[in-house]
């Protein structure tokens, strides 16, 4: 090549090389800008992403609060048991490990199989595994002596939710059961991490299902803690990074009374029924008992499938909480409410007298409504009508009532609505109205329906809780007690008073006098329980007819079949003249109210008053 040509070639090369190297420079600058945008502009996002990669947070279960009665005695407590826990990642040979530990801790075949099944998986990710639950004292002692042989194994405390009275507080306290996660309480921890939660309960993560355990579940649970581990890309835990201690749930102090509940359970025996007792001063519910019951200890800590099925299929329906959900006709216990209606609406007054021939004839149709005593009670005024429980008197009073006004009046006394502030799954039962009857039965309201309502039969139904609330209102002369299971302080109560211009203090006094007479006078229908106690009690008993019959023969026949027998009911309060407690008792198929339900009410009042 000649020199000139070579110079052209060199210039050509220089410009082309400059172009390519220039492009490379631009590329380097582009990379630098990209790195800048990742490391400087996007730093916060990527730092979070890196933390999310490596930080594995597991919840640390908190201890549930315990539940106490009004005297500070434990109703439900956390009872420690001991579990044997291993670190599978430190165990190289499972078989020889199991062989070594067997003389110290007895292992069943299923326990060994279960352990072998999960060992590898847990070892890989450095997580713990329970080898045996609920060690005996002997096993603990044996293990502690030899613990230096087992660096990969330790004993940890695990709690069980235990009540000393599992069978008599079953419905009111309720039971807990296992849950997969408590995601709701700690939304910052992913759902999948809950399977690795550090547990305090032998039964795992638990949640209240019924009763107080359910109603106050959040309160009792406290706050779960959190332990954060560093995790590598294969899901192995490398080391713990941080720990937030769980906060034990606060204890729950209730108005329940162990002795009174015990006496309710004892005096009801194995009959079906319910007892509710209320402290008039605080509105606290001292007794809430439904029979038959079941063991909450077993339900909360593992019950066999057979036992559970037997409970579910029991014809007596032990899971049914009769105190809050049982719908019973209030029968004669409604009479004070009907009386209040008559007085406040000026249909009758205390002096008004009528003749009771033992039956009431509906003028419109000639239909006959019978009293419970053949031949009647003679001349009755309101006082006597309460004492002898004259049906005729209240039939004729109800006959003059306006059904809409009467329904409103009954609702104002708490019927047909939930009355307890913190009861689990309370039924509101109902007060009938013409509208209701038309929608359900497609039939019009007739005068006879109102007349039947006058003695608490027919369509009106109430729960024992509503009856107890009604008894409290009568006892407190119109003050709404607003029953609650937990001591006031957890919730504010309103100060509502039942008031009517036509019903004044002297009416209340006369009412108390009459209801006192039901039990304490020689003519009272519940006088049979008069001598069971040292203090005076007012009340009203009732017998709820399940089948309405006109002939005595048919009635005898019905009595022979237990399930068709009348329910016996009583509401009572005492000690008079300044009542402190009100109580309602319903005994299914127990027949005569005063004689059957009465003694139960007296036993409960006795145990409450004599404390």
């Amino acid at each position, binding site marked *: 090549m000649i020199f000139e040509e*070579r110079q052209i070639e060199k210039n050509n*090369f220089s410009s082309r*090389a400059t172009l390519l190297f220039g492009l490379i420079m631009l590329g380097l600058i582009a*990379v630098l800008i990209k790195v800048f945008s990742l*490391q400087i502009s996007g*730093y916060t996002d990527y730092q979070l992403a890196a933390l999310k990669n490596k930080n594995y947070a597991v919840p640390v279960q908190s201890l549930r609060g315990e539940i106490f009665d009004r005297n500070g005695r434990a109703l439900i407590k956390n009872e420690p048991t001991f579990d044997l826990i291993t670190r599978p990642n430190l165990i190289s040979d499972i078989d020889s490990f199991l062989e070594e530990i067997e003389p110290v801790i007895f292992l069943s075949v299923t326990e060994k199989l279960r352990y072998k099944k999960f060992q590898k998986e847990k070892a890989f990710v450095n997580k713990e595994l329970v080898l045996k639950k609920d060690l005996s004292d002997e096993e603990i002692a044996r293990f502690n002596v030899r613990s230096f042989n087992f660096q990969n194994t330790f004993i940890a405390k695990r709690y069980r939710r235990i009540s000393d009275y599992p069978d008599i507080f079953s419905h009111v306290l309720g039971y807990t059961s296992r849950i997969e996660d408590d995601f709701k309480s700690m939304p910052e921890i992913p759902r999948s991490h809950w399977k690795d939660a550090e547990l305090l309960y032998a039964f795992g993560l638990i949640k209240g299902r019924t009763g107080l355990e359910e109603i106050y579940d959040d309160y009792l649970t406290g706050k779960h803690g959190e332990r954060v581990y560093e995790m*590598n*890309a294969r899901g192995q835990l490398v080391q713990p990074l941080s720990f937030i201690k769980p906060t034990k749930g606060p204890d729950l102090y209730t108005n329940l009374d162990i002795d009174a509940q015990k006496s309710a359970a004892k005096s009801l025996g194995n009959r079906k029924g319910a007892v509710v007792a209320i402290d008039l001063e605080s509105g606290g519910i001292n007794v809430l008992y439904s029979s038959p019951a079941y063991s909450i200890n077993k339900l909360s800590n593992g019950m066999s499938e057979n036992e559970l099925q037997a409970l579910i299929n029991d014809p007596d329906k032990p899971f049914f909480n009769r105190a809050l959900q049982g719908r019973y006709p209030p029968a004669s216990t409604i009479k004070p409410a009907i009386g209040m209606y008559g007085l406040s609406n000026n249909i009758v007054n205390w002096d008004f007298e009528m003749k009771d021939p033992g039956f009431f004839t509906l003028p419109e149709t000639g239909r006959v409504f019978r009293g419970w005593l053949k031949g009647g009670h003679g001349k009755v005024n309101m006082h006597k009508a309460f004492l002898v429980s004259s049906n005729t008197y209240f039939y004729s009073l109800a006959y003059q009532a306006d059904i809409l006004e009467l329904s409103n009046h009954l609702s104002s006394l708490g019927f047909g609505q939930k009355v307890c502030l913190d009861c689990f799954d309370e039924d509101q039962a109902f007060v009938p109205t013409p509208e209701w009857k038309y929608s359900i039965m497609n039939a019009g309201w007739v005068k006879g329906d109102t007349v039947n309502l006058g003695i608490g039969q027919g369509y009106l139904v109430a729960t024992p809780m509503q009856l107890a609330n009604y008894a409290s209102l009568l006892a407190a002369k119109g003050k709404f007690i607003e029953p609650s299971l937990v001591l006031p302080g957890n919730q504010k109560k309103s100060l509502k008073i039942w008031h009517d211009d036509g019903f004044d203090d002297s009416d209340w006094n006369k009412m108390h006098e009459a209801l006192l007479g039901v039990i304490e006078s020689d003519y009272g229908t519940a006088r049979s329980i008069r001598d069971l106690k040292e203090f005076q009690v007012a009340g009203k008993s009732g017998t709820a007819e399940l089948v309405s019959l006109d002939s005595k023969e048919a009635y005898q026949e019905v009595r022979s079949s237990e399930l068709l027998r009348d329910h016996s009911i009583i509401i009572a309060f005492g000690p008079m003249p300044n009542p402190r407690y009100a109580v309602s008792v319903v005994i299914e198929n127990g027949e005569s109210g005063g004689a059957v339900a009465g003694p139960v009410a007296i036993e409960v009042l006795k145990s409450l008053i004599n404390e």
Partner: protein
Amino acid sequence: MNKLFQKIYFDPYLFFSLFLLSMLGLFFLFSASNADAGIVLKQFVYVVAGFIIMILVSQPDPDIFRRTSGFFLIFSLLLLGITYLFGPEINGAQRWVRIGPLSFQSSELLKLAVPIFLANFLFDKKLPIQRKEIIISLIIIFCCFFFVFRQPDLGTALIIAFSGLFVLFLSGLSWSFIGGSLIVFIISSPFIWNILLEPFQRQRIATFFNPESDPFGASWNIIQSKVAIGSGGFFGKGFGGGSQTQLNFLPETETDFIFSVIGEEFGFLGVLLLLSIYLFILLRCFYLALSARDRFCRLVIGGLSLTFAANLMINLCMVVGLLPVVGMPLPFISKGGSSLMSLFLAFGIIVSMGTHKKFLPQ
């Protein structure tokens, strides 16, 4: 001592910058390998051997490389053929050839052989280059590309193609030809996509354009790499302190993704330092190319250093998410003997071409 330096062919700028880069590489590798001293020691041996090879290769006159360039290309292709026939299959690819206790990625040699051969073929041709010469060059480039591509090793095949194309471009390829072939390439790209690319390669490219489509599959690598670099911030998390690296969220930390380790543990500052060293090396190569004694030397220095630059750029762009994932180590930093040896070999040749003058000064 000074006399010795005067007698040997030696470029102090390249020598010390490569030395700094290699030492930093060993340092980074220690952290990237979760403190595996064995790996670092092995790499150290390669580095030492590499410097010896570089100094030895710098000594012969460029004419020797020119005259042996045909043999070198045939030898490289032969090695590739041996790999194809006898090489063990690792992860679905045949890339390695074993000679005694040493195993070597045969395709690495082609990165050198192709540009040197083309420089020799083109250096005495008149400007502009004739169509016949262009076609012969392109056939050689395509054949070498295709053999390596079939291993399959898309990354290395691309680098080989680039190395040849750089020389062709620098030697004076006409602009009209470049424009024409670009149009042909664009038209034929659907064919390349459907027929030539392996499914996993297509998957990688698809993932690149939509990384969130498959966060636990193919795009896991690139997402984790970005998280590693991004979470490093300005100062980095410190030596051995990168959670993405140490807890293995980042894949291939010792090889393809070692830049992400540097980004995570040494932050933007570390990246800046590293890129400055690379920039310095490239600028020095640029200077040597311009001041080389003849057209052959210019073409070889330009081709080899731009190949090095392409290698670097592909790795950098891949780990920061500017390019799809292709297997490509970070030069002088990533673990691996083959690529390191071929790099030192290349820089040995560059030094030889850059320091030999026609008339030695007396």
